[in-house]
């Protein structure tokens, strides 16, 4: 039986970055090639916001949010993904999050970043942190253009059987792994890991962390 490695799972949003994913979708939409598409795509992305805020199923909210990018070329997604990172996210990485990544690496853990943002936006973070694996959303492409659908499986909540399957595929030992999350939606990820930690959590996750005796780490402000 192959050796299983301990990992450190980081939910990017909240733990490593402050900006919500929907802003990336909105920014990409407003940078469409044609002026008319900028308005229609932004409107479509905006439909996802009430869903996200109303506590609807996060997978549905993610699907609706990214649906607005339908028709955008892969070239544009990749290049603007890098630009969005460089313009808005590169200076937004939380120092505490970076410290946690460094500590996890020193502890010999595989670094796994989990994000509901697009892989093309997150790739520079993977390179910056030297992460081993990225679990992020991918736009489904046909003929070099986004269909408007996210490729399955959609990353919204990440936990349960899907996390177990992922860990098995990658040779990760969940019971010896740490997981860092910041929102109630990350509870499934934290619950599956042997060493969960809430990082500057929202109200829901804070209550859960207290109930379950998970450590709570506050960000420097």
């Amino acid at each position: 039986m192959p050796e299983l490695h301990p990992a450190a799972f980081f939910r990017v949003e909240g733990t490593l970055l402050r900006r919500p994913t929907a802003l990336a979708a909105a920014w990409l939409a407003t940078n469409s090639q044609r002026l008319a598409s900028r308005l229609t795509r932004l409107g479509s992305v905006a439909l996802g916001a009430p869903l996200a805020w109303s506590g609807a199923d996060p997978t549905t909210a993610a699907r609706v949010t990214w649906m607005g990018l339908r028709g955008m070329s892969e070239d544009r997604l990749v290049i603007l993904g890098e630009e969005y990172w460089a313009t808005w996210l590169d200076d937004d990485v939380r120092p505490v999050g970076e410290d946690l990544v460094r500590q996890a690496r020193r502890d010999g853990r595989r670094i796994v970043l989990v994000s509901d943002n697009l892989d093309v936006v997150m790739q520079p973070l993977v390179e910056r942190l030297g992460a081993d694996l990225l679990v992020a959303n991918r736009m489904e492409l046909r003929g070099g253009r986004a269909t408007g659908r996210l490729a399955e499986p959609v990353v919204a909540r990440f936990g349960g059987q899907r996390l177990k399957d992922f860990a098995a595929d990658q040779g990760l030992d969940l019971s010896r792994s740490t997981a860092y999350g910041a929102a109630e939606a990350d509870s499934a990820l934290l619950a599956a890991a042997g060493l969960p930690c809430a990082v500057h959590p929202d109200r829901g996750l804070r209550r859960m962390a207290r109930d379950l005796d998970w450590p709570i780490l506050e960000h420097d402000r």
Partner: protein
Amino acid sequence: MIRQDLQGTHILLTGVTGFLGKVFAILLLQEVPDIRLTLVVRPRRRTQTALQRFEHIADTSPALRPLRERYGADLGRFLGERVQVVSGDIEKPRFGLDRPALDALRGQVDMVVHCAGLTDFQPDPARALAVNVAGAKHAADLAGYWKTPLIHVSTAYVAGNVSGDIAEALRPGVGPSGERFDVAGEIRALQEACRTPSKQTRIDRGQERALALGWPNIYCYTKGLAEHLLAQRTDIGLTIVRPAIVECARTLPFRGWNEGLNTAGPLAWLISTAFRRLPTQGEHPFDIVPVDDVARGLALTVAAVRRGEQPGVVHLASSDANPFTFERAVELTGLGFRRWTRKGGGTSADRWMRWLDPVPVAEDAPGPFAVPRLKRWARSLRKATARFEPAEHLPTVIADVFGDTVREQLDSLTEQLDEANTHLVRIEKMLELYRPFIHDNRYVFATDKVRAWSDALGDDEAAFRWAVPELCWREYWVDVEYPGLSTWCMPVLRGEEVPSDPPSTPPLRLEQPSTTLHELAGK
């Protein structure tokens, strides 16, 4: 294997002062042991001999950086051992070399590679005839005299005004329109048409003849005539190499290098200005090949000829194995412009312009900013400003106080509108020149030969690999082509200086060079 094929080969090369010729020479000098190059260089001025001209290029051209870095102060000795510069002019019979000089080179030269050419789309046909047609004939005469093979570098666009798959073949005496023609008669007729003193009339007549046989412009026409003329020769082993659109280098001499005005430069410049709607057929291939890949393809062809193969016609193009469409090119140009300005390139106006992406538009749906419409608006506005007389059209009280100021402002606006109109006329002419390639015709050039030669290369021969089928257009266009054009081509379009390297101290001199063929013949 290719290094063995080329080892010790002596090539007489024309066009080394040009874009492709430089890179081809550098590739051979870097990668082939004991290669010998005899370079035909025309003296530029009375004060600069052919050798001095070449030495100046070797000393200051950015293209020679890899050799300067590798050999440093020893470059003069290295070039002196490998390179022989001969003073010659391709427009003259046998390049202007006399018999003793020709005899001195007989038995030395293994092959003639004719890279020189005039690449303007709409040149004076008299010049195009002298350079593209007569130059090719003179190269063939030399190859015939020495009984060596000739590799003639042409263009893939001799295919003319046709659409579809273009085979690596030539039908001698048949123009792209399918019409049979007599090459010698056609050349005579063009010479006759060139007798008029008016350059514009010469261009119009040349263009007329080109279109009649199915070529879109004088460049393709004269390149085509040269091919048909050479195909009649039975005394030479002829290979025709047809590159498509030769653009910025991927790796050799270094990433992004370009020289002069190439096809994509003006287009990229155009859609980086306020003009953001390019009339093109988005799905048509934009057949780009990096210059170093063209040099590699040319080296593979030379090696094949050295092995005794007779390739006939060889295409060096991208449209069959890795097509890059105009739709992508337009979008990636905008994205490249955007990235370039984000990293500090361009003016503050450019940084604003990056938010407006260029788009391809169909000619039958040109939108509100089509060039003819903009011209009409500019003309109407100009008429209105010219007619407006403050004293006449404004109330007396206002005219008395502000009349002079208003007139000054209107005069300034009129000047700006004149400039805008001139600019629009230039754009319109440029789009007309490019139209056959970006809109009317859909070319897919077969590249079976170069791909087969490349596939047969060994692992240690990557320097010669034809990598176009694996080229990532996104990375190439945004990170190589656009920055390359910005550095090396767009200054030319703006009438600015292109960067060159400072000359070394003391200036580079080829050691023990044979300065001219006359001297060579005298030895």
